[in-house]
Structure formats: C-alpha cells, structure tokens
C-alpha cells in the first residue's frame, strides 16, 4: 500500500510536470521507491524460500536499472537538443 502511494506520486508527476527532464526525475525516484516497497512486501510474504531470493534479486535489478534508464533517456533528450523548461514558459 505504501508502494502504491509512491507510484501514485510518480504517475501524477509524469502526467503533470512540464518537460522531459523533470518527468525523468519523478519517474526514477518515486517509481523506484514505490516498486521497492511493493517488492519488499512480496518478499516478506513469501518468507524464507528460494522464491524470496528471486524477489530480492528483482528488487536489486530494479534499483540499479531504473535510475540508469532514466538517466540515459534524459541524456538522449539533451543531446537531441530538447530545451529545458524555464519559469514562465508555456506548458508542453
């Protein structure tokens, strides 16, 4: 349920925020935390088992790969020449 809340924050951010860079920020932080909480709940529910080890592995991969992917996307946007949004401009 806590994970659901953080993913809700992430979804609101991705829909509302004005440009790619701020969206990448909310996607990497809030969504990683939400997925982390949910997967931790799954691991605790399963208990001491080999499948719990798989869940922990999944948790680790999400923690490593999600911010990396967001970083790569933001950098690709920068090299493509997307201008960062500044205060007072119209929303895109």
């Amino acid at each position, binding site marked *: 349920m806590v994970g659901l809340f953080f993913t809700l924050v992430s979804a609101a951010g991705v829909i509302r925020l004005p440009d790619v860079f701020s*969206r990448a920020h909310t996607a990497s932080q809030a969504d990683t935390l939400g997925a982390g909480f949910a997967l931790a709940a799954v691991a605790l529910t399963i208990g001491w088992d080999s499948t719990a080890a798989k869940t922990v592995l999944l948790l680790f991969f999400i923690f490593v790969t999600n911010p990396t992917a967001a970083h790569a996307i933001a950098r690709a946007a920068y090299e*493509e020449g997307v201008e960062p949004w500044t205060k007072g401009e119209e929303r895109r």
Partner: protein
Amino acid sequence: MTLVETTIVAGYTLGDLMLVAAAGFVLLAIAMLYRAIKGPTMQDRVLAVNVLGTNTVVILALLGAALAEPWFLDIALVYALLNFLMAIAISKFTVERGGVI
C-alpha cells in the same frame, strides 16, 4: 495453508489486499499511457513506456505472491531486464541515428 491465506489485516486476507494493490498498479499503468500517447518528444514516450514496464513487473510479482504461483517471478525478472535494455537501446539509437547499437 500459507501466510497469504492465514494472515488477516482489517478483515481481509493478505492475498486479497495484494490483489487490490495489483489493481491499483494496473490503473496507474493505464494513466501512464496518456503520456506515452501525448508526449511531445520521443524521450517522453520512452520514459512513459519504461515506467509502465516497471509497473508491470510489480503487478506480476504481486500476482505471483497473491495466487501462490512462484513462476510468475521468473517472468517478472526477464521482463525487468528486457525493459531496461529497451530503454537504453532506444536512447542510444535516437542519438546516434541508426549507428550500430
């Protein structure tokens, strides 16, 4: 009897709560489609699909725990890694314009 069936929180079993949480994640994934369709730049769409994939992984894990089907986790693992590769590959491809990935 497993922990999913015996643990009771506020009148519901843990498995039921996990199914409700999975439904919430499905709704959020659908909300993410809005950005994937509308997004003004290419990177917006890739980002939205990446977040959607992460949500799918969480949904698979929750369903695997709630329905006591441990092999769902294998699929979730493969999906997480493919999702990451997809994001990196598309970002590299759009910058280098058809160069070898």
